[in-house]
């Protein structure tokens, strides 16, 4: 099994709206509770992490959102600025050249530059060794990868660049980044999905493209918002039987039967989708239960962090392959 908490760089990817930001924050929170010093990185996003922690808005400089847990939101513009000043060693030169309107236009068409400076910032933080006693600045970095239209494109950028040029600063930078993201001793890529048809299809597709085009070590498939069963098989049959004989009249009974059918159908569908993940992806899974609460609040986040801790330690110590089963067994 992959020791998630033993990695230094955790990259979470998945399509938009599946809960990447929440689950990234939850993994970070779980690690921070273990005493690790953690940096959460949102890249080029409409920053959402602050809403989870109820903190002030998060920007380029790290904000401590919980004990040991820091967060940043990095835009290409800021990352480029930091990187350029580092390279040029002169702020005035940076301003004169890079903040010129024409040069900005020009920079926009340099292939992969935006993505590269974002990944470069991740690399920079990963390499920083100014922690106590010369230790790394961060024990763990959790990256909430941008949800682009094309899967892991973001991570392919170093390869795109080394394909275009064979030398120079961008080439060197790309090589360093590639070495980091391909190193299975420190890096892991998790695929996050909702248990619905489209996200599941895309996750299967994502794994295929990842394996074909990248050497990034894959970690867990994290299935988000999994309904816990409410009804046994017998109860489910009863609901179906009663519903067949009841008028759709909007009465209490009618509405409750509808709610029960909704739950059963969704539980059943999710079970089929998870079986598909089992069958088609050879990856360990984490199942995050559906919480019937507001999505973006700290209490929910905290529960998710506990659940991740529970499922991961369960796996690391005892290796039981089954996801946790809720009290009501069978049925839906």
């Amino acid at each position, binding site marked *: 099994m992959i020791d998630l908490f033993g990695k230094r760089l955790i990259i979470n990817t998945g399509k938009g709206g599946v809960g990447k930001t929440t689950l990234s924050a939850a993994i970070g929170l779980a690690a921070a509770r273990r005493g690790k010093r953690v940096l959460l990185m949102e890249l080029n996003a409409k920053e959402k992490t602050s809403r989870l922690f109820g903190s002030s808005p998060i920007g380029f400089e790290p904000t401590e959102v919980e004990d040991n847990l820091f967060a940043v939101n990095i835009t290409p513009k800021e990352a480029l600025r930091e990187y350029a000043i580092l390279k040029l060693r002169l702020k005035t030169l940076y301003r004169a050249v890079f903040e010129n309107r024409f*040069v900005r*236009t020009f920079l926009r068409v340099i*292939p992969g530059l935006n993505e590269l400076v974002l990944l470069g910032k991740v690399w920079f933080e990963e390499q920083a060794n100014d922690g106590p006693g010369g230790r790394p600045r961060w024990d763990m970095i959790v990256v909430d990868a941008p949800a682009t239209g094309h899967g892991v494109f973001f991570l392919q950028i170093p390869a795109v660049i080394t394909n275009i040029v064979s030398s120079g600063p961008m080439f060197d930078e790309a090589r360093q980044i590639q070495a980091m993201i391909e190193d299975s001793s420190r890096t892991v890529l998790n695929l996050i999905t909702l248990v619905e048809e489209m996200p599941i299809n895309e996750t299967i597709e994502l794994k295929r493209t990842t394996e074909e085009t990248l050497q990034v070590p894959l970690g867990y498939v994290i299935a988000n918002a999994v309904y816990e069963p*409410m*009804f046994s098989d017998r109860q489910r049959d009863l609901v179906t039987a009663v519903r067949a004989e009841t008028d759709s009249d909007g009465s209490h009974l009618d509405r409750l039967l509808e709610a029960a059918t909704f739950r059963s159908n969704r539980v059943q569908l999710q079970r089929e989708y998870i079986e598909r993940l089992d069958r088609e992806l050879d990856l360990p899974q984490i199942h995050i239960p559906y919480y019937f609460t507001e999505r973006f609040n700290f209490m929910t986040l905290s529960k998710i962090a506990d659940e991740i801790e529970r499922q991961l330690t369960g796996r690391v110590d005892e290796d039981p392959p089954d996801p946790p089963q809720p009290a009501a067994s069978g049925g839906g």
Partner: protein
Amino acid sequence: MTRKTIGDLIEGRRIVVCVGSGGVGKTTTSAVLALHAAMEGRKVLVLTIDPARRLANSLGVSELDNDERQIPLEQFAQIGVEPKGELWAMMLDMKRSFDRIVERNVKDPKAVERILNNKLYSYFSTSLAGTQEYSAMERLYELHRSGDYDLIVLDTPPTIHALDFLDAPSRMAEAVESSALQWLYKPSVAAGKFGFGLFNIGTSYVLKTLSRFTGGEMLDELRVFLKSLSPLFDGFGDRARQIRAVLGSQDALFFVVTSPDPITVDEARFFQNRLDDESIPFGGFIVNRVHAPYLPPDGLDEASSSELADRMDAVQLDGLDAPPEPDELRALGQRMIDNATEFQILATLDAQTLRALRERAGSRVTIATVPFFSRDIHSFEGLNRVRQELFALPGSTPNP
């Protein structure tokens, strides 16, 4: 206070665009809007960027590609409806679309070949921020101009920054027309100086600084590539302005698709503001996956639970191996209440979010909702069911 229905709104429009954050159901919504207009008698094309097979499946065609395909009438017949118009669909292949732009605008076949084979080209045509959106817009415009369809519905790609695709044509035009780029690929411009105001730095100095940063090889590659692309750039500005003019006209209408999640709704509001800022006709919000309330506002009391068991007991049940015991029914009744209570929390949260959206968006903005179905929509029948909800047609049922 008059709120128009989605049906009123799309009537007479020639372009409908669905925008919104990722994962909110833009593709399905686009297909449903197109289906509706086809049912009402128009010849409609739904233009999707979603490479997933699902839309093709639910429309009943084996696959969608860069060519327009008509949805067979048997599809309609199978679900017992008859369209007065025609429904067509196509999937926008980003790379192929950009290839077309090159082929159409660069006259010399050798030059076309040189561009398509350049190693920067595949990055440019598929991955450079804005190019995909530009391709989509240009294709939309081309189809619109052809006059082959009464209505084109466009499903937009998810963008990191809302409405990138709106700016894409003008940003592309601005970029290629700017002296910054021209200086790279047009020798006559290269002789000049940058507009650096006080500094008035020469281009060679800028170039030197940039190459310290990107490497000279990258700049050379870029120079060669942009030079080969330059015939394409000539008409860019004009086309971009034409596209923009159509999108801003009364021929077009934009819907913002969202889920009832507060953060997604915030993003949807942001989209709306951007559309207003840009004077783009905004049609309203389409909110997918809204949880239905299953309980009365005050919940159900103890008495209701036993009444429930009695009512279930009174139902004649066939096809069960063993008839239910009274205890069993009471336990089931309680379980059903627990279940509905959980969903009630979601229904309440969704209702709050929708109320806030209504207040903030203003009384004249149309907000149409589609319930969260107990099964995913992946058939033609499913699309039609969403249509019944979205257009509030008779026969719509909250959760069949």
